């Protein structure tokens, strides 16, 4: 479903991504692991085009995203803002720091995308938002502002907000890293229920046991490349890459 080919990205002359190839099937869950600074988050941001990339191609269901396919000669061009917005709506992203809009209630946060991004009526957007917030266990907190919610609750609102666009893929960027240990489980539970629904996910994570449990494949990034990729049992239990062995030893 998602085809990533040869993604390269530099920041100020330092190449962070050095040719990433990755395919993600419909409903597949891929976990990205690796040392901090290895480019996992950058890759995730490139997939949603929050970061532009220097070279490569990202396709969703065969459609080339973000940049128009270059004509025979000449440079690639970005799609106009309107198309970019439409393409972005096919993915949902959840960040480490929740990033809810502080001046809006949980319900308003979730409604925002469908109402003004997808131009749905206020009623339809609200029905959808209520349903999603109920699903993440926040039916009682619809009218709470982010500042009145715990970290775990805020992160669940953020997941509902991303799901409200009915995305084909959910991108999760270390969504439990900022949480107190006792709040991690409630967020992981929500993600677990989503795995039943067959939505594709790409998650950047340091929680190895969670990755092992839900991911179909785990990709280990090192030096801006995918050094090893495969099913959790292989990657985590019988790592071939020397760097990966070292990495796993350290975090255990």
């Amino acid at each position, binding site marked *: 479903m998602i085809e990533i080919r040869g993604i390269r990205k530099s920041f100020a002359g330092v190449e962070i991504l050095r040719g990433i190839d990755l395919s993600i099937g419909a409903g597949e869950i891929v976990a990205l692991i690796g040392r901090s600074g290895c480019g996992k988050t950058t890759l995730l*941001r490139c997939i*949603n*085009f*929050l970061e532009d990339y220097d070279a490569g191609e990202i396709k969703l269901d065969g459609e080339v995203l973000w940049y128009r396919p270059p004509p025979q000669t000449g440079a690639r061009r970005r799609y106009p*803002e*309107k198309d*970019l*917005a*439409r*393409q*972005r*709506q096919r*993915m*949902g*992203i959840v*960040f480490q*720091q929740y*990033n809810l*809009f*502080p*001046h809006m*209630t949980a319900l308003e946060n979730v409604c*925002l*995308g469908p109402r*003004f*991004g*997808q131009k749905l009526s206020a009623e339809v957007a609200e029905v959808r938002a209520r349903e999603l917030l109920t699903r993440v266990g926040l039916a009682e907190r619809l009218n*709470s*502002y*982010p*500042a*009145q919610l715990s970290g775990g609750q805020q992160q669940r609102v953020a997941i509902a*907000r*991303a799901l409200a*666009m009915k995305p084909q893929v959910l991108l999760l960027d270390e969504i439990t890293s900022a949480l107190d240990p006792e709040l991690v489980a409630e967020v992981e539970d929500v993600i677990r229920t989503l795995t039943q629904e067959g939505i594709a996910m790409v998650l950047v994570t340091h929680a190895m046991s969670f990755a092992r449990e839900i991911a179909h494949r785990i990709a280990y990034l090192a030096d801006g490349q995918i050094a090893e990729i495969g099913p959790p049992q292989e990657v985590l239990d019988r790592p071939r890459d020397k760097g990966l062995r070292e990495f796993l030893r350290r975090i255990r």
Partner: protein
Amino acid sequence: MTPSDLWVLAQAAAISLLMALASIALGTLLAVLLTPLAFAPWTLLRAGYRLYIFVVRGTPVLLLALLVFYALASFWGRISPYAAGVMVLTFYLAALFAEVFRGGVLAIPRPLWDCCKSLGLPRLSILRRVVSPLVARYALPPYLNVCVMAVKASSVLSIISVWELTLASREIIERTLDVYRVLAVAAVFYFIMCFAIDRLGRQLESRLAARGFAGERL
């Protein structure tokens, strides 16, 4: 100083307040138009914005008042000093407000912009639903600061014969030679006006706080 002098000062204070309020309203409008220029994709617009700020903010209000008054007078002949006064204060306040608003925009955390993008919100919705309400909250205290300054800056307009609190005080002093009492009364009037603005602002702030806003979270 007689009770009738006090009544005259009260009327003059009302005019000061009206001048200030009119300029605050118009200046805010102008600033709302100016601030986006600071973030425009074209260098020329950004340069225009900076030039406006530098020129208007870098000139004493007194000088600005004389300049606008005489320049307008030479174009249109006689001109109401009140209209000229509101215009001067509007230009001046717009520069200060625009910078206050620009600060508010800069205070919006980058991740929130990312969220807007990834939700695929059109630019106008981002401005209306996210940027404006957040800027209103971030910019409220410095905005009120400028409003209080506006009340006091209105005293400068006496130089172009706007009959307001300062000019009225001077007239009464010239007649009665009761310098200290008249000035003390004028100061009390200015204080009351500034204090009222401050109270109003605090009330707005606490109302926003009650609506769950805590700017430092994130």
